């Protein structure tokens, strides 16, 4: 883990915190206003909104049962030539004679689930580790400082393992399943969240309002829980939006490596994309549909996250 990277991260985080200090009350409102003007934010929000809507309403939109091999006979008789789009199957059939459109619609829900759960695991555990370390380091005296140093060293070591490999090694321990994908992708994100949370907390801990609170005798535990922690979440939430995009892509990669959901029934874009690799030259559409869905969704979260980050970054803001 490079110190330069850590410093860069910390600087980024401090920039966020400074912005909040400078114009605390109106900052969020300003950011929202700025985002409403930004085409990046709008397109991101629209994509994410649509995706979530489909994920929720999926069962009501999908015309067929996504697991029923209704047209199985037709596919098998045709020797693996899968019919493309036609009136009764808008996106054609998959290799088992199931309706692709229904699978795509229902798949959105699983994909969202995988992404959200993985991100939540990383977010919650990372925020606890990083936040706890920062709190101990700042207010725990000498002993606390040592614990913080040890924890953060461990985080740095974990950061030295590429994220996909970390996920892969965890997945290898657990064996292929949907839970494996969510847990391994989530756990692999813990270090980065811990880093960000700690940096964000430290920036808050040295801000004037915290000094003021200490000087008037507010208990330290209360300062941490009621002020520093909630105020530090902003940049970490932005990071979470970006991680969601990564999580969806990495879940697909794990599926491709054979560590995803072994149950071919439940549709999930990553699994579908991985399965379709076998038919790529004959029926590329089977891969292209889920791939495009994944790319567009990941793009949506990325756009939204980047727009949020830009609107919070005082350095970028000054350039407007």
């Amino acid at each position, binding site marked *: *883990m*490079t*110190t*330069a*990277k850590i410093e*860069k991260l910390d600087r980024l985080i401090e920039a966020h915190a400074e912005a909040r200090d400078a114009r605390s009350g109106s900052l969020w409102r300003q950011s929202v206003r700025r985002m409403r003007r930004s085409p990046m934010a709008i397109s991101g929000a629209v994509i994410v909104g649509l995706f979530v809507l489909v994920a929720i309403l999926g069962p009501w939109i999908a015309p067929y049962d996504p697991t029923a091999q209704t047209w199985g006979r037709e596919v098998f008789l045709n020797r693996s030539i899968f019919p493309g789009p036609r009136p009764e199957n808008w996106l054609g059939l998959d290799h088992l004679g199931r309706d692709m459109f229904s699978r795509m619609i229902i798949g959105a829900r699983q994909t969202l689930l995988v992404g959200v759960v993985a991100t939540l695991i990383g977010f919650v555990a990372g925020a606890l580790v990083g936040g706890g370390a920062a709190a101990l380091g700042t207010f725990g005296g000498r002993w606390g400082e040592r614990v913080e140093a040890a924890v953060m*060293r*461990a985080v*740095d*070591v*974990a950061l*030295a*393992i*590429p*994220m*996909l*490999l970390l996920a*892969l*090694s965890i997945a*290898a*321990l657990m*064996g292929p399943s949907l839970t494996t994908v969510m847990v391994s992708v989530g756990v692999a994100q813990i270090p980065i969240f811990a880093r960000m949370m700690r940096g964000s907390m430290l920036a808050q801990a040295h801000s004037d309002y915290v000094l003021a609170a200490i000087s008037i005798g507010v208990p330290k535990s209360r300062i941490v829980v009621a002020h520093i922690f909630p105020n530090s979440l902003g940049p970490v939430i932005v990071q979470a939006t970006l991680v969601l*995009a990564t999580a969806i*892509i990495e879940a*697909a*990669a794990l599926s*491709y*490596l*054979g*560590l995803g959901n072994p149950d071919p029934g439940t549709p999930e874009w990553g699994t579908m*994309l991985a399965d379709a*690799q076998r038919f*790529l*030259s004959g029926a*590329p559409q089977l*891969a292209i549909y889920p*791939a495009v869905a*994944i*790319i*567009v969704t*990941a*793009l949506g979260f*990325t*756009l939204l996250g*980047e727009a949020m980050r830009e609107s919070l970054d005082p*350095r970028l803001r000054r*350039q407007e």
Partner: protein
Amino acid sequence: MLRYTVKRLLQLSVALLGLSLLLFAWFKALPGGPENQMLPENATLDDRAALRESLGLNEPVWVQYLEFLQRVVRLDLGSSLSSGRPVATELADRLPATIELSLAAMVIAVGIGIPLGYLAARKRGTWLDFAAVSGSLIGICIPVFFLAAMLKVVFAQELALLPSTFRLSSGLQYTDVTGLRVLDGLITGEFNVAGDAFLHLILPAVALSSIPLAVVVRITRASVLDVIGEDYVRTADSKGLKPAVIRGRHVMRNAMLPIVTVIGLLLGSLFAGAVLTESVFSFGGVGSFVYQATQERDYPALMGFILVIAVSYVVLNLIVDLSYGLLDPRVRVRK
């Protein structure tokens, strides 16, 4: 500079120790314990007991860890379950292919990414800038294995412009020097080999470069935008220096600092991407090996791979950090 180097080296050893602990924990946590993963399926109970003894699994944990450490240092990583050969040998045989592929991808990412990012920044707000920014955003979101597979289908299979698999056409004689085939061909004067290896390298390298390229474009653009607004660039301008000097010495030398850091960090995603890309193109590098190991639950092979990748990542980033020290005099004196 010396103190800075020593400090970084100390940090490196701490990181490596931590890494070994992590790997040890991972190895201990494997389903059925490590001995299960290191024995053939038809092993007898006696074999098992013998192995447990020889692995020192009856010793206290810290003794086990020390022995684990010893074995790792001696590069004794156990034998691959699928091939039966020592993991270290398997990895060593395949490493050059992965290095060649990663280097090629990095050359593409840096060679195209930095000029493109620079142009996007200088032409901020134009269609070129828009295309570079949106292209890089999309580039980050494309699953690497899908991109690799599509490139293969389109350029190798449908258009038949480029070879689809392996590192060389079959039947081609070559001399092994460094293991990087393109380089070897150039060294030994076997230019047909170099050319053939180069053609085989194009598609995998392009696929693998997608994410690093996207990231390099974005960071270069942001960094250059930052720097061209700096006072010292205005000072350089006020000296009447030639535009090329301003661009090189004053803009790019400063803009390179964050770019170099990011390139170091990208190596991680590059290694991970190599696993996916190599398996698509049967490239025969470490990545293909690991893909196979994952399919077959070949844990010793996996562990060896993670070890090699993590160590090289840490070492490469040390090098990046040190080069950062060369680039930025402020780092050298900082405590």
